[in-house]
């Protein structure tokens, strides 16, 4: 017996579903989504570990590490997250992705400001060094000239 919404295209085994509306059918097999979530959780966990290792060397890495750690735990325990948000928690205590992201941005901004300050300070020091160097060099030259021409 053939299904009313399925049209047989010629002699082969290819069949086309022509039902435009009606109920959305979902697969009862959730293996793929579970596997995907598992893999993503593992990779986020791995990335979190890597960034935490690099935290002392790279500015902002500690914040990034915390965010990735949150993401990994959200993917590992989907019951804590809201459906449709890719496994990341929006509200609740503990790790909060958006809040962490904002925190990270703020940290990066303050670090940039600090960096600009340090650069300015370095420039000033370099200018002072050049001034002192020029004065000392010309003084040395003038004195050496005076000594070698002593009469």
């Amino acid at each position, binding site marked *: 017996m053939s299904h009313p919404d399925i049209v047989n295209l010629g002699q082969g085994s290819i069949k086309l579903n022509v039902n435009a509306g009606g109920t959305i059918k979902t697969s009862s097999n959730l293996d793929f989504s579970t596997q995907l979530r598992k893999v993503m959780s593992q990779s986020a966990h791995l990335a979190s570990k890597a960034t935490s290792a690099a935290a002392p060397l790279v500015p902002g890495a500690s914040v990034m590490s915390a965010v990735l750690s949150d993401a990994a735990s959200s993917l590992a325990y989907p019951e804590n997250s809201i459906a449709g948000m890719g496994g990341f928690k929006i509200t609740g205590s503990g790790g909060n992705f958006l809040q962490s992201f904002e925190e990270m941005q703020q940290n990066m901004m303050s670090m940039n400001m600090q960096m600009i300050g340090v650069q300015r300070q370095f420039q000033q020091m370099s*200018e002072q060094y050049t*001034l002192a160097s020029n004065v000392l060099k010309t003084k040395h030259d003038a*004195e050496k000239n005076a000594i070698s021409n*002593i*009469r």
Partner: protein
Amino acid sequence: MAKVAKQIMISGIIELPQEEAVLLLEAGYLVMQMKKYQDAFLIFNGVADLIPHSDVPCIALGNLYFAQGKFDEAIKEHKRALKRNPNSALAQAQIGEVLFFQQKFSEGIAALKKAIEMDPKGLTAKFANELLNAQKKHFFDKLSVQTKSKRGK
């Protein structure tokens, strides 16, 4: 045959070869940089007595006092150099430098301008110009604060 350079003699209280006077003064500066101020003083003072007409040993003595932070004594020695040789642009420029370190900027600028007038194309004029440039950029303001805080410790 190799040519032998004629030795220039300086007629001070005794006849002194110029080479030896130069050697003594350079040795004095080296000793001063080693912070053996007493030894440097003996050398410069000795040369100043040997060549009583030259301004150079007095300038060296002024530099020695300056290196020790004794600015008033340094100015005295540079003025002695100017008495010996009123056309000594270097002594005049050194006075300007010391005055900058004493935060007497207007007097320092005047001294340095005078030094440039004395020897406008020489090495001393370059030195004086560098000092004026540094003063314009407030180099000596900060330096004085650092010196004062170091002395306070």
